[in-house]
């Protein structure tokens, strides 16, 4: 069964304390790996798409990387406004309808 698992479930950081979030996937074939940010009561906001192992994408304090089994979201010198739930999701090869399979998310709280 295709699965996407995120760890840790929650992360408390001091402002400026860099850290990494993990997304591991066991899927029959990966077409793309997505990272989204979700604020409470809101819809997922797109951050990155990664397509192949070794790929990296960066945006401000966030950097996403992909290997054959997992993806990492690195948060460098986070600020309180980076507090959110970060979701990863996979699109699997052969899926007819491009469905996203989501992990459970990592809730990040950055304290000033």
């Amino acid at each position, binding site marked *: 069964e295709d699965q996407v698992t995120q760890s840790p479930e929650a992360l408390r950081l001091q402002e400026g304390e860099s850290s990494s979030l993990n997304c591991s996937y066991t899927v029959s074939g990966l*077409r*793309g790996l*997505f990272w*989204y940010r979700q604020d409470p*009561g*809101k*819809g*997922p*906001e*797109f951050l990155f*798409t990664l*397509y192949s192992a070794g790929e990296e994408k960066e945006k401000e304090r966030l950097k996403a990387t992909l290997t054959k089994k997992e993806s990492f979201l690195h948060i460098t010198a986070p600020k309180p406004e980076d507090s959110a739930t970060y*979701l990863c*999701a996979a*699109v699997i090869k052969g*899926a*007819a*309808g*491009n*469905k*996203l*399979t*989501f*992990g*459970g*998310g990592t809730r990040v709280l950055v304290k000033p």
Partner: protein
Amino acid sequence: EPEVTQTPSHQVTQMGQEVILRCVPISNHLYFYWYRQILGQKVEFLVSFYNNEISEKSEIFDDQFSVERPDGSNFTLKIRSTKLEDSAMYFCASSRGTGADTQYFGPGTRLTVL
């Protein structure tokens, strides 16, 4: 910047009633999706829609659910006879292309079934 919009933001209904959730996808997008998120749980895929047909649906999307694109801009999700367990946030998403093209999400409709 174009965005996906959804109405209403919050819908309260009695068990057994029909509800229609509405979405306006991004205008040049061709693929449309519904997902739901029960409080504290993962975002779950419900259905994808392209060229006026369902492309894929999950086990959740049973005969009580239907989708429609009634005109050139709206995309709706109907739940025929709501159950308590249908209470969730419902997200509409759209993408320009297929495969791993980016899906952009709306703000969601919170459905509460009493």
